[in-house]
């Protein structure tokens, strides 16, 4: 955790990422971004909980909508130099799907999320935005030869009329507005 971070350049980067994560958290009601339990200051790990619509496979070839997704984000010590790495050639270290395990997307195969090319030092709010666009199918990859889930890529090609599953922008916040009736010229409601 951050207590072991002795590189001042990376430490400053982490502090900046915390500011950006907090700003996005405040600016959106579709995602909550919080440091993972036990993280130091500034944190290296975050959990992003999305409250947007996406797809899951429910067995028997059925694909249904779901509305809660959790993604883990980890900024490794050399994140500024290499952006992230494959772990044993199977998954990646920066992004992990935490749940549900049956997310249906060409670029997601539990627990791996393939966000395409992440340049070293890509800001955390940009990563979260990319993941949001993937989960809601605002961004999709329909190439089976470059996808983590080729079956989902095939399926996506045949169901393009369904997309996006959720068209709401990430940076928005629901507000409660009380609407009061104003009397019109003829005494009726507005």
């Amino acid at each position, binding site marked *: 955790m951050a207590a072991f971070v002795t590189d001042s350049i990376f430490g400053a980067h982490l502090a900046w990422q915390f500011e950006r994560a907090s700003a996005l958290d405040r600016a959106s009601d579709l995602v909550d971004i919080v440091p993972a339990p036990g993280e130091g200051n500034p944190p290296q790990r975050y959990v992003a909980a999305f409250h947007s619509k996406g797809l899951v496979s429910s067995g028997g070839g059925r694909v249904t909508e779901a509305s809660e997704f959790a993604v883990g984000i980890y900024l490794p010590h050399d994140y500024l130099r290499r952006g*992230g790495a494959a772990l044993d050639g199977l*998954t990646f270290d920066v992004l992990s799907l935490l749940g549900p395990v049956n997310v249906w997307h060409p670029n997601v195969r539990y627990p791996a999320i393939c966000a395409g090319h992440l340049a070293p030092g890509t800001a955390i709010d940009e990563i979260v935005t990319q993941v949001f666009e993937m989960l809601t199918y605002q961004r999709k990859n329909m190439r089976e030869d470059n996808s983590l889930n080729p079956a989902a890529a095939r399926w996506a090609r045949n169901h393009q009329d369904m997309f996006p599953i959720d068209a709401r922008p990430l940076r928005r916040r629901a507000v409660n507005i009380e609407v009061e009736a104003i009397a019109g010229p003829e005494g009726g409601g507005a």
Partner: protein
Amino acid sequence: MSRKRSGCVKGHVVIVGLGNIGSFTAGLVARLPGVSRVTLIDRDVYEAGNVAGQDIAGRDAVGRPKTSVQAARIRRINPRLPVLAIRDHLENIPLGLLRADCILGCLDSKRARQVLSEMAWRMSAGAYVDAGVQADGLLARVSVWIPGPDGACLECGWSDREYAALEQAYPCVPDMSIPSPTGAPACLGALAASLQVLECRKVLSGEYEPGAGGREIILEAAGHRAYVLAHERNRECRFDHVRLGSPKTVRLACIIGDVVSPARGGGALRMADGRSFLTRLVCRKCGRGRRLLRLQGRLRPGDRRCSRCGGALVPLGFEVREYLDMKVLPRRDPRRTLRAVGMMPGDVFTVRGAGGETVCEVEGGGRDLEDCCSVSGCARPSCARRRL
């Protein structure tokens, strides 16, 4: 350097990459006087398409590991020169095996160059001499980096653009990250190799001062032009330039808790090559998780199968650990041996605590590995890797 004054030129030379440049480099190093030991590193086998562009004898080499082919060739040229051939990914090589007087990089990927530069720096190699070619314009390039207090590193000259252009770190299909061949003719590879070995010769004879700035020599064969560039240390370089001190030797059978003993001022263990520890695997099929403690890149085949559904277990990136902190490790983990978490002879790690930082190296690196065909899976009964 005293070696220069005494005329005693002896050195361990590591060659990483045995393709268009490295296949020529190996033969030239074998003929270099005073080289005391050579280590060859490459993960690939020679293919039929390599015969035209690389220094291999002919079709006999096709299908064989590049390290085996070049090790045999070096032995034919110089039978008294000890050769260690390691067929593995660069990232998997124990850092202690790269303790060298000169590291020669003959790589075709920017990312691999970055990894090798970091390794050279950590182990305070005498020099890291990187060679490259570009078929367009017939360019041959050699860069010399001398790790030292004020020395420049490969990354000192990198801008945001260079970092952004690093090879795809997140391929959706892992094999797609393999760089495409340079298409350079054999003669261009030979030119770069010759320049590289000439610089190696200078390094071994002490013509470069420790900590000297970086130097880059470029020959543009198409236009008959030559360039020499100097590189200075960049104070805002993203690389930390940390070099490790002399290590304390530990055995594979050592218990982690003993090595990182709080009584001795220890508190946390971290791999010197930046490799992380995997602490959780999850099943892709049923979602079940399994706790473990294993070094990244050192999973065993048995670790990868779900005991409930038989599905594939894969690491959860969110739960990797950059260091083992004795305060937060589950009780049984400090009782494990270094071997049990996947360490190998030659692995180097640091132990940090109230008393400062200690560098440790697992003994046996390179000593028991002569003629070894693969670091991670050698079949020779005498090889230390076999027991892992």
